[in-house]
């Protein structure tokens, strides 16, 4: 950047590497928005099922395609990430887990649990 005045500039937010907790904070919002869009599709699917087998069939078949599976995987992982992260928020709401080490630990725990829940759901689906 050409800084003619040679004045010191404060580094912009994007310069810093966000700590895991900050990353999870914005991810919580992002997954929240993803979940709204996903839920709208789920309601659409439900409405199709309420309508008839003929409207439900083709729609649910789309979920079997590669892009359907990508959507489903993204939706389910977002769901469990938001779920675990939300439970972490509920603990904060009652004043628990604010120590730095605890915050770092629960951040990793949230990601680990979300991955485990996603895999578990896929295993149940594969077995069913």
């Amino acid at each position, binding site marked *: 950047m050409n800084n003619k005045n040679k004045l010191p500039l404060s580094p912009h937010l994007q310069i810093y590497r966000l700590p895991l907790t900050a990353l999870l904070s914005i991810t919580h919002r992002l997954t929240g928005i993803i979940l709204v869009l996903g839920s709208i599709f789920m309601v659409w699917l439900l409405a199709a099922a309420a309508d008839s087998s003929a409207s439900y069939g083709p729609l649910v078949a789309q979920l079997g395609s590669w892009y359907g599976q990508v959507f489903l995987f993204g939706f389910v992982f977002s769901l469990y990430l938001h779920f675990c992260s*939300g439970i972490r928020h509920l603990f904060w709401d009652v004043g628990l887990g604010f120590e730095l080490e605890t915050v770092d630990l629960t951040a990793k725990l949230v990601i680990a649990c979300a991955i485990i829940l996603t895999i578990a759901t896929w295993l149940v689906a594969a077995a069913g």
Partner: protein
Amino acid sequence: MSELTTPLSKVKGLGSAKEGTTHFWRQRMTALILIPLVLWIGFSLAALPVDHATLVSWVQQPLVSMLLVLLVGAVFYHAQLGLQVVIEDYVSSHSRRTVMLLISNLMCLIFGIVGILSVLKIAFGA
């Protein structure tokens, strides 16, 4: 000038938005309800074959249809509250914010209603 709030409004604790901690509280209540419901729906749907007849007979079980109505209601209430906060935080233009809040609130209401009606139609219909 030290005090602009009346003693009454102070003790009511509703603040300038006139709703106090209502938004915060409802966000948490819907979150709590959703904890068991999300685990239930996630693993139930995973275990269920995807064909229409299986889904319909599953939804028609009284406990399932009741929980589904609760789930759809809680999801879209929670979504409305959450989207509201995101819009209020990131959309600074007052007119654009109002329009976006209107759209988001309406969408949540409509899809919540469609979802609940669909569950009820399957539950009571043929």
